[in-house]
């Protein structure tokens, strides 16, 4: 096929549940390509000489190579290529912000002068991950007697644990919750990332010989220094995990939730299965979600699915500045979520019983670009207006959880409580203790956390080798 012929192949749309239907169920929204669609989409790749997509990928998956295999229908080989760089293709194919990473730089999108017409790399990745046979995980042979403790079981920790096990080290994962998977199980909803996919990855880890200890809170059940003594190396991948509130009056009212709480109830605790789950859930009719990231989208769409009559997402910057994945914003809009940009809460208003009944908001103008490069929002004086709401969900990000650092004074953290690591080795100020993911980066993405876990595992392996080499 010539380049011209390839460019003429129309992008393959993702089959999806109808918006009106899916807005009322918890099933996955995007249904996945058929084999034929995956092959056709993969064959749109020009295999251009510079492959800028690889540069755009935080873990540098050899994208043109896996697409070429997929175009030939050899999905097993495609998946093998992906798995060399990425441990969680079924997850990343679903939740990566491809339009800001690989697909942003795709030559096809550039030639067609429309980034949304770039090769749908993530969708092909997902097809391969969901459908291709790949060898079942086997116990990794142990080399030496070193044992690594991994704290947390989200994407950074899963990746670090797997890489350490592959390097021949014993690995024990400590998870605070009753179920492993971190944000993949408590945060990202079933309709975007089915839990069975996460469970499969956890089962793979176990099959490799990784031990998973649940219900173990490092910083409480045992302090970090104790783990550091008992294990040869430690990786901290606990995520950010301390929800920020807006700091406006009324956030203590009944009906105001952090997105973490709202989503954890619905996802991890399965409160969407009313009558079966013991965890109670707040069924709002008029829901106001504050924030513009993926978490805000997840909360808004969960509210719709659990019976809300109207759901608004309120974001203080403009639509262009919204950090959420483009697809999540589109899905939310199709499902009936109302977007109110350049607005923000001034105060939350309660009724006589202390329950939320409205939010007083202000309109915002966009001023000069701030440190993040985005135009900074400035409140318009006198622009107050009232939005009726019985539920307010705050999705404005997370701060650093102090639980571990509070019990390990020798662990260096920055002004924001993020753990400071060596750029090259990912080691913290404590010898043999490494860290990665949101607890180092602040809020980031699943794939960035994975990349961090991988770099830390390399650092750990080098550290353990140097230790055994030295005696």
């Amino acid at each position, binding site marked *: 096929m010539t380049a011209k012929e390839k460019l003429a192949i129309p992008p393959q749309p993702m089959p999806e549940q109808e918006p009106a239907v899916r807005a009322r169920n918890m099933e996955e929204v995007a249904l996945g390509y058929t084999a034929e669609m995956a092959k056709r989409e993969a064959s749109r790749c020009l295999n251009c000489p510079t492959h800028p997509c690889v540069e755009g990928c935080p873990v540098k998956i050899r994208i043109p190579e896996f697409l070429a295999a997929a175009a030939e229908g050899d999905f097993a080989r495609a998946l093998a290529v992906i798995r060399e760089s990425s441990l969680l293709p079924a997850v990343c194919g679903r939740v990566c912000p491809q339009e800001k990473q690989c697909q942003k730089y795709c030559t096809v999108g550039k030639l067609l002068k429309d980034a949304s017409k770039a090769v749908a790399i993530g969708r092909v990745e997902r097809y391969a991950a969901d459908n291709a046979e790949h060898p079942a995980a086997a116990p990794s042979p142990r080399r030496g007697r070193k044992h690594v403790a991994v704290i947390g079981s989200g994407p950074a920790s899963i990746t670090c644990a797997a890489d350490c096990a592959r390097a021949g080290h014993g690995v024990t994962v400590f998870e605070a919750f009753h179920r492993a998977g971190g944000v993949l199980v408590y945060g990202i909803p079933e309709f975007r990332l089915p839990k069975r996919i996460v469970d499969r990855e956890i089962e793979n880890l176990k099959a490799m010989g990784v031990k998973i200890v649940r219900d173990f809170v490092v910083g409480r059940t045992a302090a970090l220094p104790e783990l550091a003594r008992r294990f040869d190396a430690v990786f901290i991948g606990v995520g950010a995990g301390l929800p920020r509130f807006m700091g406006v009056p009324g956030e203590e009212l009944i009906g105001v939730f952090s997105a973490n709480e709202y989503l954890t109830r619905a996802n991890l605790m399965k409160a969407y299965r009313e009558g*079966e789950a013991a965890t109670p859930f707040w069924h709002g009719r008029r829901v106001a979600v504050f924030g513009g990231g993926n978490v805000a989208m997840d909360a808004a769409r969960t509210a719709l699915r659990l019976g809300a009559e109207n759901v608004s997402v309120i974001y203080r910057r403009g639509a262009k500045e919204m950090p959420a994945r483009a697809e999540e914003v589109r899905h939310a809009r199709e499902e009936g979520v109302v977007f109110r940009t350049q607005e923000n809460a001034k105060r939350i208003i309660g009724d006589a019983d202390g329950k939320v009944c409205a939010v007083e908001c202000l309109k915002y103008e966009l001023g000069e670009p701030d440190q993040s490069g985005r135009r900074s929002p400035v409140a318009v004086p006198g622009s107050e207006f009232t939005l009726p709401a019985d539920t307010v969900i705050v999705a404005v990000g997370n701060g650093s959880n102090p639980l571990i650092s509070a019990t390990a004074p020798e662990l260096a953290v920055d002004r924001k409580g993020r753990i400071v690591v060596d750029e090259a080795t990912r080691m913290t100020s404590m010898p043999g203790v490494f860290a990665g993911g949101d607890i180092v980066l602040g809020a980031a993405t699943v794939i960035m956390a994975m990349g961090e876990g991988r770099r830390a595992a390399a650092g750990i392996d080098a550290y353990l080798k140097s230790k055994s080499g030295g005696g």
Partner: protein
Amino acid sequence: MARILEKTRLSESVYRMKLEAPLIAKGRKAGQFIILRTDAEWGERIPLTIADADPARGSIDIVFQTVGVTTKRLSAMEVGDRLADLTGPLGRPTEITDYGTASRRGWVVVVGGGIGVAPAHPIAQAFKAAGNRVTVIMGARTRELVIMEDEMRRAADEVIIVTDDGSYGRKALVTAPLAECCERAERPDEVVVVGPPVMMKFAAAATKPFGVKTIASLNSIMIDGTGMCGGCRVTVGGETKFVCVDGPEFDAHQVDFDGFIRRGGTFRREEAAHKCRSGLFGGGEGSK
């Protein structure tokens, strides 16, 4: 893990259980709590305080009242059964100070209301062990609901029991003997209150005029117990605090108890509906 080793029914709706939990038994300190689940698939995470621990045996004691779906299920479990999950110890331990000086022993008053007597027990023990004289004030609605009296008598120098209906001890609320303690010539160095939010609110009001340092141990809505959900937030001195990681103990004179009490009722309607479905209030199992 987390096998039930002993089970005692203390009253109509109050149970005490000894749970196998070696790590928690070894590490726990006064004032800390645990989170447990009874059912692996659909279970809810509920926080419960630790009433006692035996590091040698590797066990902890919990005391709970059957007020919701999970405590009801827990009460139906028997010796030998295993919990689905048990996590802890959570929360910051009580700050234990020896208030003694060269001329006098320190004096700490520990107030426990209802099943709040259970978490008050290790707190009283710890203040006593540090060298203070400890007075315990135990309040209950009626005689049948007075729990852990013998253990408290062993833990404290002085025990004052009050019941709302006068069926045992003195007929009074805990605030009456508490105010009297504060009126004595030598005031208490510290008061710790654990119990129903309304009781803690009035206990705080009782000590405030005397300027006696008063600590309240809050039990709030909570999911993870590690700071992740923010459901347990409470306003203390105008600032938002998380009970699970900043608490559970706070300066009682700074706690916004009205806000705390309101938030405690967030899921009242949902829970009432659930109780009906699960037969807690006579709706009968399977009456969905």
